[in-house]
């Protein structure tokens, strides 16, 4: 399979001294659907910014579509971004424009012909199921609908990658499932999808590749075993418990314990006795 995104030993240290990414290597193939999970501040946003060339790495190489974007010229960056459609947590819709114009805006901004806009926008709105809301303002729509507009805008220029940064962060759970289902449908057409999220329910529900980033490192990748395995527990083994404030540690341990019991329950239903190393992780944190 052709690689669409490749990080080779990428580190990013901000001017403030924050190490956002630490020697991270990851490769995503064309047509994959990948969840990127991790606590806030783990480096997920930096990961996305590096792909979009909003930031440049301090060390390492990033290839997008086989092009080394760390060495790309400034004036080439817009053309790199035309390969990507971005979906934001806060939708980023322009409220003084109608739904139609919000989507058309992305096409006009890259100099599309008016005739192409007229043809493409209704098609995309139909795809996300918003044809009847074309003349509405974004503020008249529900959160889920707004996110679908945002998704339509990301799709309209026919990108090869969709990058969704916490796309379900501002909408209710049912809508969240719908959005991911929609993304999954788009993925079936061959578009690579990257979804950053911290909603474990979603990740567990959709059987996709999961990459866990903690403290700027890729600590777990379901693809590492060579085949896609269901998402299991977040690997917190990298965390030195002495670094973690007591409250956070308590939260993490509670979360881990809950996830653990859920997975045990799921596995025992399927008649597979569960006995993993994760039990030890949980006790590690508590200790």
């Amino acid at each position, binding site marked *: 399979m052709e690689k669409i995104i490749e990080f080779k030993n990428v580190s990013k240290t901000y001017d403030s001294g924050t190490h956002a990414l630490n020697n991270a290597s990851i490769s995503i193939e064309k047509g994959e659907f990948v969840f990127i999970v991790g606590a806030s501040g783990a480096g997920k946003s930096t990961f996305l*910014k590096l792909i*979009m*060339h*909003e*930031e440049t790495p301090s060390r390492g190489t990033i290839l997008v579509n086989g092009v080394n974007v760390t060495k790309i010229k400034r*004036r080439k960056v*817009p*053309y*790199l*971004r*035309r390969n*990507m*459609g*971005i979906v934001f947590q806060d939708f*980023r819709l*322009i409220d003084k424009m109608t739904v139609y114009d919000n989507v058309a*805006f*992305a096409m*006009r*901004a*890259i*100099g*599309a*012909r*008016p005739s192409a806009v007229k043809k493409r926008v209704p098609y995309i709105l139909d795809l996300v199921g918003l044809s009847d809301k074309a003349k509405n303002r974004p503020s008249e729509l529900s959160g889920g609908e707004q996110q679908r507009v945002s998704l339509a*805008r990301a799709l309209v*220029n026919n990108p090869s990658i969709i990058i969704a940064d916490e796309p379900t962060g501002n909408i209710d759970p049912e809508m969240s499932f719908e959005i991911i289902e929609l993304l999954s449908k788009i993925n079936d057409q061959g578009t690579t999808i990257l979804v950053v999220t911290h909603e474990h329910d979603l990740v567990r529900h959709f059987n996709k590749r999961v990459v866990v980033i903690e403290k700027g490192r890729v600590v777990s990748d379901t693809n590492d075993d060579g085949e896609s395995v269901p998402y299991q527990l977040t690997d917190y083994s990298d965390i030195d418990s002495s670094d973690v404030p007591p409250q956070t540690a308590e939260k993490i341990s509670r979360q881990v314990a809950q996830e653990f019991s859920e997975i045990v329950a799921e596995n025992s239903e399927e008649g597979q006795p569960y006995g993993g190393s994760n039990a030890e992780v949980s006790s590690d944190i508590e200790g």
Partner: protein
Amino acid sequence: MRISGFSYLIKEGLKNVWNNRIMSIASVCVLISCLILTGSAVLFSMNVSQLVESVSDSNETTVYLENGLSKVEAVYVGRDLKKIKNIADAQYFPKEEAFEEFKGRLGEELFENMKGDNPLPDAYKVTMTDLSKYNETVDKIKALDGVQKISSRKELAQRLSSINSLVQTLSFWIVLALGIISLFIISNTIRATMYSRRFEISIMKSVGATDAFVRIPFVVEGVTIGLIASVISTVALVFLYDGIMSIVSSLIHIEVMPIMSVIWYVALIFVLAGVVIGALSGFISIRKYLKKEGNEILGW
């Protein structure tokens, strides 16, 4: 870039002017006052120049020759005069001609008793290339043999030309200062537009709009402000000039330059200045935003 893309960007620029109309009107007003002040300074200077020219043209220095000089000697004096560097022309003006001119000006009757006696000397009418070197040139003329005396309106001409050079220097600095002020104010207006559209800018950048595409609407905004201001300034200056000059010419009897003779020239300069200042403001203001990425544009 395709025409369709370009016309979209121009429309966006015009929308910017309208959506941000209070600031746009303020900018137009400031630019108008700058252009009118600049234009007034230039017109004033042109008038003074014209005055200096008419004074030095119509009142050439008259060099009177000594009485009793023969015609041949007069020709020699003329040749010597023409050899002096600063003298553009020396026209022989024989006493007979001077007498006729005198008679014509004062009336034949006065001279009836003179019975052909002509008390006037022969003369040369001399024009100089550079009036500021008047004194040196006069000294050189006086040193010539056969020259009796020199008369002219030198003081007036000299004073006028020194006023003119003062006005020119002054207007240069006024133009420069006002140009910078306009630039500053229009960039602030555009920056306000940009702030209100930062959201759109961030989206444009995220979908892969080129710098030119992000920039053009703001340059169009600046150019529009410049164009509006320059047209209004031209019209206003015509009325202002006519008004002031009719007052001035009723007070002192001087020939003022008619505005219509230079109006197209003024209009062209105004439009050029407006467009350049406007476009430059757009360019300067957007630079900061073009360098930013993602949330930086939104100030998060």
